């Protein structure tokens, strides 16, 4: 078998001084764009101790160098023999991240080892390195099925407790003729189970930290509910993101003025809404307990913004900024900035300048913002209708719009939101997830079922898309929010034709006071680009990033031109000197 071409094969020793100068010029040309691609001050090279730590890390990245990126000096070292690539040092000095060499795959491809916490940063920087053709996580192959052993994931779960839906977590499995709207998270898990350092922020009612199926999956988070009266935890903003319950008592409703003036007329039980959303994204998976999370290894940053009767726009906007890692005056910095922010909340109003600014700032910081379309069957809620938000509508198990889901051109795509089929008896296709048994204050950890506690609503479609975004970023951390949204939409499945010919096409609603559109056949102008397909989305995310923009391309071109011009000048001068010394004899030799 012919060995693959290597640097040593291409190198021609004894090529003369001019050839070495040419190599120097080319090296300069190659170095220049790399230096230009650096952002911020030059980073100090890691110490050998850091390098050792990196070598002890668990993550591996495969790096493919561009043709010609292997410098002449390395070729010299490898002369006469096919040497493995040892370029971790080069990358360490260039990017300031401790690395160790791993196996060589061919002349331009090698594995480098990196500390798990640095993997995302390394991939992001390599994506900008003009010497690198591509770099990707060296995926660990899992068993072919990637089916978790969580008992409520499977269809027909054991009849104990009996109130759980017979279909299990149908929405995570591959689509079938019976449930074509399932998101096929199983296919995605065969490729990635999610980077545990990838953070999805859940801005909601807080979470129950004591739920065993969320153990180890929740970061500390923060509480942004500033009004003690609605916060229900005795104070304003604080560092405790736990959910004390958002119940409303008759005496709350009897309060004549703020803060409960527009809370409706009936007392309400606690919703444990944030715990449900968090479980859909990141419940502990394959732990033989309860449910699976669509994001498997992803972690949730709980940010409490809703108390009794909801939350104020000022608190939510502040929390959006904080979740993305931006500073909020008076609050501590967020040590775990999120790459995905889930907003399963809303109001029937156009996007406000405050939300537009906060969302733009979060996106500029690299966070993807996902929001629920709303449950009124009319125009899309604020903040899902804000620019740059991935708005998610809800569909039935068969892929038609579920009656309650709001809709419109602002929707990016649709995902299962839970539906019951029948009007009485067990709800047949809810989205089973983590919850709590308390009707007011917290009681025992639990799972939602198929009765009155069934999880249905666009609040629960959005976190499926948020988890998909987290998995996409796990395989391609350099995805910008816009590029991610594009790949999420373009990988979605086409809406199926309605089995029932009596189901009308969805229409763009006229506003928030429009007549509620019940079940209808989705169009791309009402329910987004198609049905969420997590397996396809992760596959699309793993494709190479588009070439760098004008600035990066320009710097590469300039570097090449400068290096080649320098090398040509040197060769020309050498040639003239040589001719002058050798005289006519050399000319004809």
């Amino acid at each position, binding site marked *: 078998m012919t060995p693959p071409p290597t640097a040593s094969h291409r190198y021609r020793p004894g090529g003369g001084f001019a050839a070495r100068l040419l190599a120097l010029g080319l090296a300069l040309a190659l170095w220049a764009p790399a230096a230009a691609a650096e952002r911020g001050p030059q980073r100090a090279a890691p110490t050998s101790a850091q390098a050792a730590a990196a070598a002890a890390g668990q993550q591996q990245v495969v790096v493919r160098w561009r043709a010609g990126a292997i410098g002449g000096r390395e070729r010299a070292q490898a002369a006469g023999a096919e040497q493995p690539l040892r370029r971790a040092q080069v990358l360490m000095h260039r990017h300031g991240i401790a690395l160790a060499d791993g196996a060589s795959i061919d002349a331009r491809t090698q594995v480098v080892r990196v500390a798990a916490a640095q993997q995302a940063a390394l991939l992001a920087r390599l994506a900008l390195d003009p010497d690198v053709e591509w770099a990707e996580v060296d995926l660990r192959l899992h068993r072919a099925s990637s089916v978790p052993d969580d008992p409520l994931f499977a269809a027909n779960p054991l009849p104990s407790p009996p109130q759980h839906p017979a279909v299990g977590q149908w929405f995570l499995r591959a689509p079938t003729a019976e449930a074509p709207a399932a998101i096929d998270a199983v296919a995605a898990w065969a490729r990635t189970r999610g980077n545990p350092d990838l953070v999805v922020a859940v801005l909601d009612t807080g979470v129950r930290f004591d739920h065993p199926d969320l153990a180890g999956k929740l970061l500390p988070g923060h509480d942004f509910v500033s009004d003690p009266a609605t916060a229900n935890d005795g104070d304003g903003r604080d560092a405790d993101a736990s959910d004390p319950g958002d119940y409303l008592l008759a005496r709350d409703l009897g309060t004549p003025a703020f803060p409960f003036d527009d809370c409706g007329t009936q007392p309400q039980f606690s919703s444990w809404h944030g715990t449900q959303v968090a479980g859909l994204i990141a419940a502990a998976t394959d732990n033989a307990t309860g449910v699976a999370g669509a994001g498997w290894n992803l972690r949730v940053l709980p940010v409490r913004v809703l108390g009794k009767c909801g939350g104020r726009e*000022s608190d939510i906007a502040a929390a959006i900024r904080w979740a993305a890692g931006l500073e909020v005056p008076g609050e501590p910095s967020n040590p775990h900035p999120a790459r995905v922010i889930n907003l399963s909340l809303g109001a029937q109003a156009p996007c406000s300048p405050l939300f537009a600014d906060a969302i733009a700032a979060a996106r500029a910081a690299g966070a993807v913002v996902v929001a629920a379309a709303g449950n009124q069957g009319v125009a899309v809620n604020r903040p899902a209708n804000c620019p740059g938000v991935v708005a998610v509508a809800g569909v039935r198990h068969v892929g038609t719009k579920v009656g*309650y889901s709001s809709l419109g051109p602002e929707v990016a795509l649709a995902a299962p939101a839970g539906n019951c089929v029948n009007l009485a008896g067990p709800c047949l296709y809810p989205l089973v997830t983590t919850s709590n048994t308390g009707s007011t204050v917290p009681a025992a950890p639990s799972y939602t079922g198929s009765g009155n506690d069934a999880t249905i609503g666009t609040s629960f479609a959005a976190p499926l898309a948020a988890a998909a975004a987290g998995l996409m970023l796990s395989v391609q951390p350099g995805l910008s929010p816009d590029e991610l949204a594009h790949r999420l939409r373009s990988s979605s499945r086409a809406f199926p034709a309605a089995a029932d010919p009596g189901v009308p096409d969805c229409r763009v609603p006229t506003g928030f006071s429009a007549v509620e559109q019940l079940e209808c056949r989705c169009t791309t102008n009402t329910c987004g680009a198609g049905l969420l397909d997590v397996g396809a989305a992760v596959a699309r995310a793993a494709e190479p990033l588009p070439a760098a923009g004008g600035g990066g391309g320009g710097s590469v071109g300039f570097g090449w031109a400068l290096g080649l011009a320098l090398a040509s000048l040197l060769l020309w001068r050498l040639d003239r000197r040589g001719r002058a010394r050798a005289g006519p004899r050399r000319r004809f030799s």
Partner: protein
Amino acid sequence: MAAAPLPTTPSAALRRVLAALALALGAALAACAQPPAALSPPLLLTAAPGAPTGAALRAAVAARAGVAVVSWAAVDERSAGLRLACSGAACDEAIARLRADTALVAALVADERLRIPPPPAREAAR
């Protein structure tokens, strides 16, 4: 031998302590009986370009409104949710004064409430 009478001085001291406690309790109860401080509706303020930021903005807002700022929940350096110590017409006047000062305030609007989307009715969830 007859028992010596108990000293009276401690009883007098005890009475003084009890009286002080009773006074403190009364004062506390009286304070509780006061009507709650009047508050404006929740407001959302965005400072004008060039206006002070942070704590200085809060102080300037209180001075211009002519009433105390009771709560201040920052969104960023230029925006915050707030409540003013006022009610009824006094609030309307304070808000009008703030809105009129365009060098200080770019926008002053209601800090709207967002909620969990309402649970769907079973009929809409088929």
